[in-house]
């Protein structure tokens, strides 16, 4: 169920009194338990920033270097804490700069409240300075949005925004506040939102579906569980693990599901999808019953739908009814929160083991190990491979660091070789594939969990999309570790050009700057390594370092990520080389 839900004995933190709309915005945030906010000031949001000045002891504002950094930081914060991430920007360009992150949060079900300033209500629709229709622009990529034009509407709008963002399938909400609503006065009184009549975020599982699902699982010969982000969102890791251990069913994870189930568990068989493990993909087309928990059969997981798991009876546990039957038609659909559904199923499933079936996965592992992993893990004499770096980070952190990845080859290498065993320690841009996500998201993650090691693994392409956030790290002394895997290429695009476009390398080679000077320019301790012999010591130095650290690892220029399910191919036709 939702975290951060309104408490039973709700005590108002802000006594009812008359205040400006701007102060009410701050009061609302405090009422909702917000203590950190990422933002960037500007004309139309200045009254709220003026109010921040008085509340610095209660509300920590992190000044980013670009609004995209604010929204990604809020995402990183939300993803590792299951709390609502909050960011704030001014109107016009400030607001439009948030859009990429909002779209990212929407597709990856991340709870956000994004606040934007807006021109005075009398200027709406006049093309006033820094006026943009952010409500219209953000409509397709928000779970809900609302324009506040009256100060007295602020408390109710905020209460509703937080409720919608975190309940059901979480998502981003945008509140656009006109400047006059910030200046005008209201009698502040806060009532948390507990429900909206047109919105039913917690559908309940139906007993008939539970029985039908249990009976399929109990009689299955080759049952298979696919775990997704939904288990993390519903905080059902314990329930899920108990369920898996009782039923003895092998588990594979989606990209977004990584860290929902420990990678070193005997029933964990690997990572699904386009660059996933061999067994998990191939066996999808051999299982007789597939239980999908909190995942949405994204095309990167299914490959060609027409040849995806056609032999299997699918049970789909999913909180969002629009996801059920969207891509894969389930035999049994359980429209409910993952935790609720698993708890309901638990007493009806039999204790079983599936030794022979699990052996089939192990046989696939042996093939993948022989053809791919062995080679990837061997440290060459003259150059470093991405997998060498990731595998070592994984070992040195016992799979427990929060690993934030950007998008591309390095992201797939981390997903394959970082053995996640922590609690919600995988942060990546899954659905939208936003390059530039990792650096600001890592900053947000570190603010949410300051005592955890946060490591951003980034490619040289993505890093240059948001590297201005080194400034935020500098100012806040945020202790994130940045590992730049530099191959002087936009590697994943280059890989596709090599495999599918006859090696016509069209605009993928990068002339890169001196990253060390850049990092040092921001006051961050930095080191560059090129030789395999330096790798272990450099990683140890980075992990031992207090405060931010930048490690550039020059990696093999033309490495390819395998296995790979080419676009349009079946998961059964995954290529190992």
């Amino acid at each position, binding site marked *: 169920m939702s975290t951060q839900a309104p408490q039973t004995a709700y005590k108002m933190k802000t006594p009812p009194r008359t205040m400006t709309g701007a102060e009410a915005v701050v009061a609302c945030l405090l009422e909702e338990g917000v203590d950190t906010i990422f933002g960037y000031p500007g004309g139309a949001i200045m009254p709220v920033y003026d109010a921040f000045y008085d509340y610095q002891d209660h509300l920590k504002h992190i000044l980013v270097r670009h609004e995209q950094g604010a929204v990604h930081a809020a995402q990183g914060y939300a993803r590792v804490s299951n709390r609502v991430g909050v960011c704030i920007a001014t109107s016009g360009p400030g607001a439009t700069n948030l859009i990429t992150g909002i779209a990212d949060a929407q597709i990856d079900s991340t709870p956000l409240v994004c606040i934007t300033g807006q021109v005075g209500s009398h200027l709406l629709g006049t093309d006033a300075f820094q006026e943009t229709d952010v409500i*219209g622009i953000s*409509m397709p990529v928000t779970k809900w949005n609302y324009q506040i034009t009256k100060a007295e509407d602020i408390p109710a709008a905020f209460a509703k925004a937080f409720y919608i963002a975190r309940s059901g399938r979480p998502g981003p909400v945008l509140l656009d506040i006109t400047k006059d609503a910030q200046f005008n006065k209201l009698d502040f009184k806060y009532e948390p939102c507990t429900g909206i009549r047109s919105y*039913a975020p*917690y559908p309940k599982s139906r007993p008939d579906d539970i029985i039908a699902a249990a009976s399929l699982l109990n009689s299955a010969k080759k049952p298979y569980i696919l775990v997704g982000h939904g288990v993390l969102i519903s905080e059902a890791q314990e329930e899920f693990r108990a369920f898996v251990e009782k039923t003895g069913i092998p588990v594979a994870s989606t990209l977004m599901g990584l860290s929902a189930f420990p990678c070193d568990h005997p029933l964990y068989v690997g990572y699904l999808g386009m660059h996933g493990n061999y067994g998990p993909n191939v066996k999808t087309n051999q299982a007789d019953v597939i239980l999908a928990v909190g995942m949405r059969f994204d095309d990167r997981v299914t490959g060609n739908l027409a040849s995806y798991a056609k032999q299997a009876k699918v049970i789909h546990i999913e909180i969002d009814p629009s996801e059920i*039957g969207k891509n894969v038609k389930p035999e049994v659909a359980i429209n409910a929160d993952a935790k609720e559904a698993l708890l309901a199923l638990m007493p009806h499933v039999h204790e079983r083991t599936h030794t022979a079936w699990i052996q089939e996965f192990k046989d696939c592992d042996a093939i993948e190990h022989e053809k791919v992993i062995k080679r990837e893990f061997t440290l060459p004499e003259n150059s470093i491979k991405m997998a060498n770096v990731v595998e070592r980070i994984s070992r040195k952190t016992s799979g427990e660091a929060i690993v934030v990845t950007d998008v591309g080859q390095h992201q797939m290498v981390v997903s394959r070789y970082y053995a996640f065993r922590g609690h919600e320690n995988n942060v990546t841009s899954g659905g939208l594939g936003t390059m530039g996500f990792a650096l600001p998201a890592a900053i947000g993650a570190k603010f949410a969990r300051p005592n955890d090691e946060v490591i951003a693994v980034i490619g040289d392409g993505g890093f240059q999309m948001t590297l201005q956030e080194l400034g935020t790290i500098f100012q806040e002394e945020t202790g994130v570790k940045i590992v730049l895997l530099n191959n002087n290429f936009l590697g994943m695009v280059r890989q596709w050009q090599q495999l599918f476009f006859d090696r016509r390398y069209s605009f993928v080679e990068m002339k890169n700057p001196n990253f060390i000077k850049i990092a040092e320019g921001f006051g961050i301790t930095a080191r560059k390594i090129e030789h395999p012999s330096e790798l272990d010591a450099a990683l140890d130095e980075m992990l031992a370092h207090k405060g931010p650290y930048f490690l550039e690892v020059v990696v093999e220029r033309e490495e390819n990520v395998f296995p790979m399910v080419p676009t349009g191919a079946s998961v059964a036709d995954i290529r190992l080389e």
Partner: protein
Amino acid sequence: MNQPKKLFTIIAFTENRIGLLNRITIIFTRRHINIESLTTSECEVEGVHRFTITTRTTEERAVKVVKQIEKLVEVIKASLHAEDETIYQELALYKIDALKIAADGTFTAFLNTLKKYNAGIQSAEKEYIIVQKLGRRVEIFMLLDALKEYHVLEFAKSGRVAMTRSANDLDQYLREMEATRAAEEIEAIGV
């Protein structure tokens, strides 16, 4: 595999909020599905609006679109109906060249045409006559064809006003939703 395209009616009950029409139409736009007609109005429950949308698409896509509409926070309920599952009416107005009828001396034939198609004269001026027809889409277009010989100066047709053939009670549905929600809330706070 490929289902045939058919005409579907989607009925959605929503809160009366600014921008909701936009939220609904972008669901169609994004999937490259055309809206054939759209009518919005108040309904029997105060504060609740009713959208009646017709669209020509496959059943599979129509089902998915309805789920996306229902997913919108401010949509109370959305449902999909095949042609035979609704009772519906559309309204059409036709502006006819009165001078031509007078010049041709075809007024009697004109009146017979209206009678045949169960249409009436809404208003008559020296230069034009406005014909009004209530009915189904196909009848409305048949009349348009029949009126062409009298010179149609202007033609306008409304979207669809439709009711389902089941005895749904929105008010009761809302009360049930409210009761479930209240129960959930009690459960959540552990009273």
